[in-house]
């Protein structure tokens, strides 16, 4: 008891003078750089158009029912605590960013590779028994790319739907109808029905609950907190929020319907299928990748992720890169020399680059890193919620497509990692449980960078530079060949073009 008191006192003294570390992107609500009145006419990804999901017409602001809602809102406002008001500002008026951050957090939480059992076997996460152990899911980069793609696509289609009805019904926000209601946010002339924030919340919760089933309660609590904040902002009455929730739930159901049949459930194959892929590559090329962990993992990560339904590429094989240099060919030997040189001279700069882009186990993965960048640009360029969702939707579709294309190459070519072919070779990054060629980091990053360069042309040089650095970081880390990186980068650029071509004709430009 005494010890714990001492402990508390000392902890208090030493922590009171420390500043808090950021647990989210720091930004205040802002005035959007555009309102996009025609956003309801943009082409959604999953549904036909902005009117495909139906909601009823709202009651006019002079109706009794609306006046009753206003009275209810004032009652809620009068009872709001200081913490409730802080929540309004924490969610901000761009909750697309906040829900994306929630997804990143869950990815990092679940990005843990199952360890071996006592007897040297491995148990894989099982969606039928999510509690495990091991817990479901293992949110590895392909899983993360897919979770983010469905999340962002559902948000985007939901936003188009919201915009459609906002400018169809054109109902004023409560703070404009009644001057006694304070407005917590910077002014943006957006009609209030339905609440775009509620669409984002409901769609995000539904998608993330399916992707992270153990987090249902956590997500529902966040949703309630957010929906209340939407009303406390002064921008919405309850019927605005309710209509947004309806749209969010419906579009999430459409997204999850696609997810249920996209082939992901077959991506992690049994050993027999994995062995046949390995043998096919060995017969074709004379080499095969092997897992070198202790104890050895019998199956690589998601051997059939390459067959998952792509978003915007009609045929994965059309994006398959050429055959990599054969072991002991001059080009290969030059790479061995280079890797050995990097290993012998681990400069401060190479180590920094290897670590900065590692995004390994326990982190938000490379797709997550590009979402982090996208969020910063969204805030920097003051995008509205619709354009934010569009940015993330096209970027995450491109990233997932790049991952699928990359995985197709990985298991088609089944190329060994440096630690398998170079005797005694050691790395400063963890060697992943899948074949080397091409580099996932390179493909994910190039795809992310290309879409960001399209949306934010001012940042094009910067993001492409980052993508190239992310690619070479894997060589510095000792876990990839340079041709994995260069070819992977080109593959990502190529795959992303399909998404960009589609974005260019969706009505937003």
């Amino acid at each position, binding site marked *: 008891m005494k*010890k714990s008191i*001492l*402990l508390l006192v*000392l*902890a208090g003294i*030493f922590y009171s003078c*420390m500043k808090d*570390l*950021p*647990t*989210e*992107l720091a930004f205040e609500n802002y005035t959007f750089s555009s309102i996009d009145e025609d956003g309801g006419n943009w082409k959604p990804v999953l549904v036909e158009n902005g009117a495909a999901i139906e909601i009823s017409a709202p009651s006019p602001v002079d109706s009794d029912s609306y006046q009753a809602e206003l009275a209810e809102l004032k009652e809620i406002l009068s009872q709001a605590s200081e913490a409730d008001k802080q929540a309004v500002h924490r969610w901000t008026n761009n909750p697309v960013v906040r829900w994306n*951050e929630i997804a*990143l*957090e869950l990815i*990092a*939480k679940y990005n*843990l*590779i*199952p*360890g*071996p059992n006592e007897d040297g076997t491995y148990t894989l996460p099982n969606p039928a028994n999510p509690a495990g*152990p*091991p817990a479901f899911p293992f949110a590895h980069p392909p899983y993360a790319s897919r979770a983010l793609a469905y999340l962002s696509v559902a948000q985007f289609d939901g936003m188009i739907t919201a915009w459609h009805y906002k400018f169809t019904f054109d109902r004023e926000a409560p703070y404009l109808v009644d001057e006694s209601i304070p407005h917590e946010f910077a002014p943006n002339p957006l009609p209030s029905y339905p609440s775009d924030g509620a669409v984002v919340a409901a769609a995000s919760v539904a998608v993330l609950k399916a992707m992270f089933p153990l987090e249902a309660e956590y997500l529902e609590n966040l949703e309630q907190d957010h929906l209340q904040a939407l009303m406390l902002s002064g921008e919405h009455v309850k019927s605005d929020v309710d209509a947004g929730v309806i749209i969010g739930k419906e579009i999430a159901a459409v997204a999850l319907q696609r997810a249920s049949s996209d082939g992901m459930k077959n991506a992690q194959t049994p050993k027999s299928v994995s062995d046949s892929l390995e043998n096919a590559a060995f017969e074709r090329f004379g080499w095969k990748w092997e897992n*070198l*962990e*202790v*104890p050895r993992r019998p199956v690589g990560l998601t051997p059939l992720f390459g067959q998952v339904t792509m978003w915007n590429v009609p045929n994965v094989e059309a994006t398959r890169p050429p055959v990599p240099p054969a072991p002991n060919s001059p080009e290969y030997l030059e790479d061995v020399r280079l890797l050995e040189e990097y*290993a012998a001279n*681990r400069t*401060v700069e190479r*180590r*920094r680059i290897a*670590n*900065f882009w*590692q*995004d390994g*186990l*326990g*982190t*938000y993965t490379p797709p*997550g*890193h590009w979402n*982090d960048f996208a969020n910063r640009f969204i805030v920097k360029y003051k995008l509205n919620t619709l354009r934010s969702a569009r940015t993330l939707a096209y970027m995450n579709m491109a990233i997932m497509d790049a991952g699928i294309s990359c995985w197709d190459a990985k298991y088609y070519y089944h190329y060994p990692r440096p*630690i398998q072919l170079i005797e005694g*070779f*050691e*790395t*400063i990054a*963890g*060697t992943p449980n899948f074949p080397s060629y091409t580099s996932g980091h390179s493909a994910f990053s190039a795809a992310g960078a290309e879409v960001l360069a399209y949306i934010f042309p001012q940042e094009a040089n910067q993001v492409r530079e980052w993508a190239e650095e992310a690619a070479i970081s894997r060589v510095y880390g*000792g876990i990839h060949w340079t041709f994995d990186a260069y070819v992977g980068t080109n593959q990502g650029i190529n795959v992303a073009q399909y998404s960009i071509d589609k974005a260019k004709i969706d009505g937003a430009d």
Partner: protein
Amino acid sequence: MNLLNRKIMLENRKLIPLVFLCCFHLISIESNGQTPLDELMMPKQDLCILVNYEFGRFDQYWEGEVLRKNGTIATVQRRSALVMAAYGITDKLDMYLGLPFVQTNSTIPNGGKFAGTSGLQDLSTGFKYQILDKKTEKHQLSLLASAMFSVPASNYLSDYQPYSLGLKTPQFAWRILGHYQLLSGFYGRALAGYLWKGYTKAEREYYYNNGSYFTPWMDVPNSINFDLTAGKWFWQNSLRVEATLSTQNSVSGDDIRAYNAPQPTNKVDFMRLGGFAHYYFPKINGFGVLGYWNQVIEGRNMPEMSTWGLGVTYQFGIKN
């Protein structure tokens, strides 16, 4: 050593001999360098140099509270060479300066194929002050306080565990120590310390610590440390032998996640048993040798580390 000092030293040896011996009872764990932690005080203007070699190894560690093996890292080995100096500013105030070179690696074969690392760890400096020193014919009681400070001495990476050389953060250690000794040479010692550890900078801009952190800065948990020691002087006070039970409890921090690498934000707790001996050559003036062995016997987010060390000490006076 000047004549006067030598004379005083010889005289004092007969009475309370321990005050003037060079003292380096070391704490050496993976994370917080080496720190002098005993009751011995240097005479004014005496300087003592320690050169020490240490070898540590573990093949199991506590992931949270579960002890496990990990084929990815197999057995991790850790070698360090330390040079340390102690100086008597007054008879009641000593100053310390120390710098270790550390090298780490996994044994081969291992499943991870990670490269080990090596380099200078942390430069530490600090003071020890004798608050109280009560001597009677039958026993001696002393009370001391120390404040140590360390800063990273090279650009090593703390976020490369379990191979990191150290925590790569400034550290303050405040300690208070009581020592009770009988004429027979038996003694007991108790020590309490608070270790403040600052932030360490990782080479990434995102990490998970029971939630997202969008920063390279990691908060390294502070800790409360206790030691209990029992020992005895032998052979006209030329040899001391002692056993110590040490504990550390971090006041915050997260657990290592399942089959995941440790990180500097972890709550690192341990209980460790150690033996230590220091022999002062009676006929070779100023020279001594020391040896020690430590075994972590209980822990949380801590390697089950076994360590032994050997060192040579040389003490001499500095002329005015």
